[in-house]
């Protein structure tokens, strides 16, 4: 079996409204149209696995990998229940989930596969797969977003994904399910008048998209903390950390911004990144680089495992 590899990546929105009610807002309609373009690109590729990291699936016990081969249920959005339910029948690559778990553990992470009938697949992942892989032409994998993990741990999770992909022989497209700015309107708005919550968020989103459009994924990864602080980024932008680490931490990509629209005030973008030989300039790498996770810091707490021994 030849070595597997990441053949590309997409940043996709974390909200289901463009799927539930595209007609309600020009922005959501535009996203629905752009999803179709991304879907066509995926269908034209030779990918044989879609691997998602979703900020809408929060975990506490390390990192969870979805391993139910055929999840079959429905999800109702916690806020937008009046827009209806999303019924899903998905196809998961259970063998890959198990391999990813092993690779994560080999790098010091706590990881486990989950496969339970009725498990609530998160609304971000369901929306993404319905738009990009509606017939389950490709199997998928989903990994959770640990609420306590910071950059180091998330990079290791991304590198473990790269390990698993290499060993699996799969040709993989990564999907980072995440908003950019994640400030929402806290009241009911007229969907047609949706806009980015603040000018500042909008400006930061556009800066990030400018860099991604130039293929500068590693630069965006290095900027994530500042972006998160300034523009209320979604989950510290962990999806970007994960993608950047899984793809080798560099700027050798061809980037394409398919769309950027507001969804209830948040910044929702569809961006594609294809590996290319040519690096874009302007590199400024100064964050830590971590290969193995040595555990929760537990500065004030005794190590639970030691206590347990």
């Amino acid at each position, binding site marked *: 079996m030849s070595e597997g590899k990441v053949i590309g990546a997409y940043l996709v929105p974390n909200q289901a409204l463009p799927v539930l009610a595209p007609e309600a807002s020009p922005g959501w309609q535009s996203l629905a149209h752009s999803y179709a373009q991304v879907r066509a690109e995926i269908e034209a590729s030779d990918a044989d696995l879609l691997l998602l990291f979703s900020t809408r*699936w*929060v*975990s*506490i*016990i*390390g990192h969870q990998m979805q391993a139910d081969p055929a999840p079959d249920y*429905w999800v*109702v959005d*916690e*806020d*937008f*229940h*009046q827009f*209806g*339910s999303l019924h899903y029948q998905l196809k998961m690559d259970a063998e890959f989930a198990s391999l990813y778990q092993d690779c994560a553990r080999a790098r010091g992470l*706590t990881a486990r596969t*989950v496969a*339970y*009938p*009725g*498990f*609530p697949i*998160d609304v971000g992942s369901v929306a993404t797969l319905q738009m990009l892989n509606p017939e389950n032409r490709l199997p998928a994998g989903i990994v959770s977003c*640990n609420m*306590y*993990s910071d950059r180091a741990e998330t990079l290791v999770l991304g590198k473990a994904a790269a390990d698993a992909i290499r060993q699996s022989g799969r040709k993989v497209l990564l999907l980072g399910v995440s908003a950019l700015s994640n*400030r*929402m*309107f*806290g*009241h*009911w708005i007229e969907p047609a008048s949706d806009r980015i919550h603040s000018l500042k968020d909008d400006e930061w989103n556009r800066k990030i998209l400018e860099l991604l459009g130039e293929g500068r994924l590693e630069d965006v990864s290095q900027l994530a903390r500042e972006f998160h602080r300034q523009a209320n980024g979604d989950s510290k932008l962990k999806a970007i950390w994960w993608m950047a680490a899984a793809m080798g931490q560099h700027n050798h990509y061809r980037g394409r911004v398919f769309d950027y629209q507001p969804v*209830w005030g948040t910044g929702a973008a569809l961006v594609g990144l294809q590996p290319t030989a040519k690096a874009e300039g302007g590199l400024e790498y100064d964050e830590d680089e971590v290969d193995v996770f040595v555990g*929760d810091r*537990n500065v*004030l*707490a*005794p190590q*639970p*495992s030691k*206590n*347990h021994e």
Partner: protein
Amino acid sequence: MEKGRIITGCLAPHPPHLAYASNPQQNEPKASGAGAWQPLLDAYARLRQSLAAHDYDVLVVHTPHWKTRVGHHFLGVPHFEGLSVDPIFPNLFRFHYQLDVDVELAEAICRQAQAEGLVTTMMRNPEFRVDYGTITSSHLVRPQWDLPIVAISSARTYFDYSDEVGEREMLALGRATQHAIEATGRKALLLASASLSHRHFTEEPEDPEDPSFEHIYNPNQAQWDQHVMELMRQGQTRRLLEEMPDFIAQSVSECRDGSLTWLLGALGQAEIPATIHGYGTVIGTGNAVVEWDLAAQEVGA
């Protein structure tokens, strides 16, 4: 119609571990009985015993695990049944539930809260899955499931604006809850479904119920929890509310989801001593089962 009233208010934490350890027939996974959370199971037993002396006809639950960013939502369908699988601890909680909702009371609180200036919404989608916080707290307090409930979501005001704004909203929501209960003639039991300190360990032992693993995440959390419980015991409600933003920030408290402040608001910020039925840790978080017995207070007065 007789004027309604709140019979008792409880802090009723919802770690799914406690439902799991009770081995109810509705839950698919079965616990070993190794005893890691026995102090909390005993605390809930004492609470149930105490509540047996009271007559009430509805449970009103504020839950941190229905997280809404567009205001405060209320279950608005008369009956739900289904399977609740905890996305975080699916190994422990896969609970088959059937429950009735007191929609009339939910609508009354929803209207009253709107009149207080809050953004409110009735949840009318019958396919909605009821969250595990609501189910766990309700089950541990009244496993018979013979009374209707009202479930209120946790608006993200603390997170999207600030802890102070969140606190003010929750006090207003509490007032609205109290007024709606009075206006609808209900005798209500209120449940704030929340832990105190709330930093978790991010790994789990082979047997999740292994008592040699279980302890508080760090001494800072333990001290804050003890302090907060002392304020409750002494009936220093206003001081507790004054210190709430510090408590939230310094102990990573789940009170940031608003449940406890909602409860104290609904109790009219009454300075009455609470009964601490017990305290224990669950995967590092601090949990107390606490009762503010308004009915006993009235008898004593």
